[in-house]
């Protein structure tokens, strides 16, 4: 039963991933792409947590921790660059 | 802000305690070697980066402050849920009922952590997004603008969080 729920969660997260990817591919301006990048990173954290649950390895969570901190940096770097020139 | 020497050292001590707490949470165990290494690492970071802030830097450790902290988090999660359901309702409706705009509101908070928490809370709650913070003015993007008047918007958006944060951080 729990397996079914985890599978369902993975499917829904996959659809969300696809939608964010569509925004990345379309994105009229570069900042739109950055927003999509941010969302994709956070969805990747969900994927990592699901993988840790499926495999039963708690050590995978360290990677999610690094993601949570570093995705933020990538977004800020790009945003500061785009802010600087106009 | 006029910061004395003792207050600087107090900040460092609080930063050290917070880092130690995080270290123990990261390790998830309580053993002698972990405590020793954690103390050394936290001390080095706290002394090397003296500008560092922590969640408790300007926190008032009074009973009222602690109770306000708990109530603040309760209110925060309630608002977070409300905001998500509101956004889901907007997104799922085919007509996309939005009337966005950027309004200006006023805050009374002075401490840095309090202001950061206020801005973060506003960003995560119903239909609002902090765009810029300058002095006592906050510029907030709303999905549906109720009124463009400063006082009304302040009462609607800011005051809920501010009452708790004022007790917590001042």
């Amino acid at each position, binding site marked *: 039963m729990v*397996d079914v729920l*985890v*599978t369902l969660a*993975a*499917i829904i997260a*996959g659809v969300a*991933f*696809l939608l964010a*990817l569509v925004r*990345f*591919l379309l994105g009229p301006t*570069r900042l739109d*792409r*950055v927003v999509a*990048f941010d969302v*994709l*990173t956070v969805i*990747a954290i969900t*994927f*990592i947590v*699901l*993988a840790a649950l*499926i*495999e039963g*390895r708690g*050590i*995978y969570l*360290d*990677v999610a921790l*690094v*993601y949570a901190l*570093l*995705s933020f*940096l*990538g977004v800020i*770097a*790009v945003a500061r*660059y*785009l802010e*600087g*020139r106009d | 802000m006029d910061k004395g020497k003792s207050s600087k050292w107090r900040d460092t001590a609080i930063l050290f305690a917070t880092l130690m707490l995080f270290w123990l949470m990261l390790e998830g165990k309580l053993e002698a070697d972990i405590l020793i290494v954690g103390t050394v690492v936290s001390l080095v970071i706290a002394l090397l980066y003296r500008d560092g802030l922590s969640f408790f830097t300007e926190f008032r450790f009074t009973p009222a402050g602690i109770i306000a902290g708990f109530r603040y988090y309760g209110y925060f999660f309630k608002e977070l849920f409300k905001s998500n359901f509101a956004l889901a309702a907007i997104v799922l409706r085919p007509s996309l009922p939005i009337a966005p705009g950027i309004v200006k509101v006023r805050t009374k908070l002075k401490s840095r952590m309090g202001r950061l928490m206020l801005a973060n809370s506003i960003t995560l709650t119903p239909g609002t997004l902090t765009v810029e913070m300058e002095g006592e003015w906050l510029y907030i993007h709303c999905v549906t603008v109720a009124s463009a008047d400063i006082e009304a918007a302040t009462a609607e958006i800011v005051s809920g969080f501010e009452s708790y944060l004022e007790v917590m951080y001042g």
Partner: protein
Amino acid sequence: MNTVMFAISVLLAVAMIGAAFITILAKRPATAMLAAGLVSLFASVLFLFMAAPDVAMTEAAIGSGLTTFLFFFVLGRVRGGRS
């Protein structure tokens, strides 16, 4: 249960190829760099699924964080002088 991870890997593979297309076809260098960061990000998740958490962490910290930043840093310098 492994089919879930298999399906997600297929999704990631498709996304990586799409992002790589943007990288080589985009008009602006900034978009290309962002897409390259995205390729690196998905590769990192795929590494984790292939039971390589060490590599995943390295790719996340270095590929997605520092490399993207270096690119934007140099891009900012290069365009800033043109005026």
